[in-house]
């Protein structure tokens, strides 16, 4: 068996080990998704690959409802998977960081929909929580001590 490659100028990523099931954070550090799958550039399938065929690259991180398909097999419809282009990834570590805010992607559309159509229609649901008055805060501090 040949030894493992020793090119230390490169970074090596194993899909299962370093990418799949990792938490994805946006530029503000807010969790927005989990990596459920990876989309690769086109690979010729069902036919012999000519010698010298360039290797596929990761084009996007995919997130979606995969629990059922992991248990029972198959794959969710393409329309149910959210794509995060690989070019937006800024760092891969314990978590995967994006270079953009989550609100600009489709990853958090359900949260935005609930915010706009349900939470926003509740009384007091369209503004930040009111701050305590300074006097109340001082009183409570004295009370604590």
């Amino acid at each position, binding site marked *: 068996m040949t030894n493992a490659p020793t090119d230390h100028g*490169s970074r090596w990523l*194993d899909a299962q*080990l370093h990418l799949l099931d990792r938490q994805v954070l946006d530029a503000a550090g807010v969790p927005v998704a989990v990596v459920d799958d990876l989309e690769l550039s086109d690979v010729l399938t069902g036919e012999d*690959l000519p010698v010298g065929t360039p290797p596929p690259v990761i084009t996007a991180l995919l997130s979606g409802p995969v629990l059922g398909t992991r248990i029972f097999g198959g794959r969710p419809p393409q329309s149910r998977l959210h794509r995060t282009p690989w070019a937006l990834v800024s760092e891969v570590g314990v978590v995967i960081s994006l270079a953009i805010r989550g609100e600009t992607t489709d990853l958090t559309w359900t949260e935005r929909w609930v915010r706009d159509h349900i939470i926003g229609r509740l009384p007091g649901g369209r503004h930040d929580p009111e701050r305590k008055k300074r006097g109340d805060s001082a009183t409570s501090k004295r009370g604590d001590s």
Partner: protein
Amino acid sequence: MIITDLLGARVFGPDFVGFVTDARFRLYTSSTGRPARLYGIVVSPHARSSSLGYERSDVRSPWPIAALVRSRHRGSFLVRWEDIERVDVRRVNLRPGFTRVSSQLP
């Protein structure tokens, strides 16, 4: 193509040699966001499940799990992209005379 189409596929070269347990990508620069190219596939002769990285590093703890996973994935090896002849549905064919590379992470 998505990566889960590849993971778990049976690998033949020309006889059955194992299952795809992982795919290794190479970033030619430390800055991510750059293209991550498929370098090869990790093939396990005995198990289709993930090896949790035990056979690719020097991790030995916790020892019961390490021993179990190492046993299930003994003989795992890496096959470079150049040695892949055909990718089919749940099946990968390797070129004649393909090279078995150590699956240890550099």
